[in-house]
């Protein structure tokens, strides 16, 4: 591989990894707080992309109006899901919560099939995302860089919220011990809703950029990025936001590099993340940044 090709693949991998990271953060935050795998999270990725599609194609809105609206709408959906489907089950066996998550995911996908149509739709990139950039001998499409930059900004913002604000502190406290935190006079419901909102907003942003990178939409498109992002979260250490970012980046880079080095393996690219998961479960179930959580007995 020449240096140029390597750099090109690396940047590609980093941008794919940034997308995984953005989506993984939502998973990891919800899991950290509620110990729930939110199967519907991937479907929020799909929703984010579709809102933009409709905003641009039907309502002819400019991208700088559509993007924030799409993120807002998806966040709203995320909050509604949490309030209506997850909150009532919080005190039931967790297996009910899992079934509810599957139910919500299934409903969103089926609604999308009915409302958006089952046939794939072509997503057209705004022009500024589609130009060629040349750095030295390395040619990149502008979206590759913009995805990375957006991800860095959003993650920095999130880290700031988690480490420097009261809400962030409450989130960290809840993920350590929900019951005790509620005894401290912190409004648990409020914090959980905020966590869902942040996660959903990031999923929407991830979904929009996903559609920019892979410009074909279909109602089940959220599942694969969702699952892989979850694996990235496990890879980084579930419940840990830094871990989700590192895990996402790692997964993206390795996926792209593997195909670059072994082109015959391209067909198996989508199975690769799951193979990582299995190896991870066998050898290091706590992930890279994960700490061993002692179960309270």
């Amino acid at each position, binding site marked *: 591989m020449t240096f140029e090709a390597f750099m090109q693949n690396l940047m590609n991998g980093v941008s794919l990894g940034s997308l995984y990271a953005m989506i993984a953060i939502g998973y990891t935050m919800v899991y950290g707080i509620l110990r729930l795998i939110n199967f519907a999270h991937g479907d929020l990725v799909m929703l984010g992309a579709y809102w933009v599609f409709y905003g641009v194609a039907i309502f002819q809105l400019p991208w700088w109006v559509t993007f924030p609206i799409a993120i807002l709408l998806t966040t709203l959906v995320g909050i509604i899901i949490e309030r209506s489907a997850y909150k009532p089950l919080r005190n039931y066996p967790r297996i009910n919560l899992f079934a509810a998550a599957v139910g919500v995911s299934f409903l969103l996908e089926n609604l999308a099939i009915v409302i958006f149509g089952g046939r794939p739709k072509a997503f057209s990139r705004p022009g500024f995302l589609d130009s060629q950039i040349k750095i030295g001998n390395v040619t990149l499409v502008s979206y590759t860089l913009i995805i990375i930059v957006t991800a860095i900004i959003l993650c920095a913002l999130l880290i700031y919220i988690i480490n420097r604000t009261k809400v962030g502190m409450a989130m960290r406290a809840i993920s350590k011990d929900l019951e005790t935190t509620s005894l401290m006079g912190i409004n648990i419901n409020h914090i959980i809703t905020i966590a869902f909102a942040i996660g959903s907003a990031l999923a929407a942003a991830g979904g929009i950029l996903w559609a920019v990178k892979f410009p074909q939409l279909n109602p089940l498109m959220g599942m694969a990025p969702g699952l892989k992002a979850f694996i990235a979260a496990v890879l980084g250490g579930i419940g840990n936001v830094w871990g989700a970012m590192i895990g996402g980046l790692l997964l993206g880079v390795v996926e792209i590099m593997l195909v670059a080095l072994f082109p015959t393996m391209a067909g198996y690219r989508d199975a690769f993340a799951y193979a990582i998961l299995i190896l991870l479960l066998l050898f290091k179930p706590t992930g890279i940044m994960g700490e061993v959580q002692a179960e309270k*007995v």
Partner: protein
Amino acid sequence: MAVLLQLDHLVKKFGGIVAINDFSTILHQGELCALIGPNGSGKTTIFNVITGIYTPTSGQVHFNNEDISGIKPDQITGRGIARTFQNIRLFKGLDVLGNVMLGMHIHIASNVAEAIIRTPRYNLEEKVMHTSGMELLDALGLADFAHAEPTSLPYGKQRKLEIARALATKPQLLLLDEPAAGMSPSDAEELMDFITSVMQKFDLTIFLIEHQMRVVMGICPRIIVIDHGEIIAEGTPEEIQNNNRVIEAYLGVETHA
């Protein structure tokens, strides 16, 4: 008397927090020993280390002269240690008798295929489990509730059922984690009498955790007091009552509560 359980310099750390620090003691066969200490002093952690739920950071647990530190909880139960939990953990999906029969599952000789085919050997084993389960319930005064849901039992009976379930595994050593928690003084006293009678009937060694000292004063010949994961006193109830460190660390907390 033979040594049954030997704890050697047990240390358990969670991250930077030391939950147990250099805990050593010996339990002889037929002994009834109490472990007391204020909340958060590491009592349950010691039980969790003995029963394999936690692996000790350092130190060993010897049971019948075998090092059992670090092996899995179900294997430790198989070696002859059974326990109850501070917050009652009965199986809601099984009836009272089912909870007890589950305790006997560990001794089943028939394999799964035999259980599905219902071979004569399996049927016999199931029948024996059923009869001895009923006997056990009868001995503990729970026979009338055999087919009730465990959560429908009154609190005190649920505690007894947990003991019955633990006995079903045929243990040599029984660990009781705050069996009298949440009981009135008179109920607690009755339970303690019950525990001594069970101990004699089933030829057991008992190690029990209690939060309130007066509950164990009457029945336990030996008491170990811990605070911050360390032994601060050990001896007969009289010795403990007059120990200054205990009064300071333990009773001091008690008066505030």
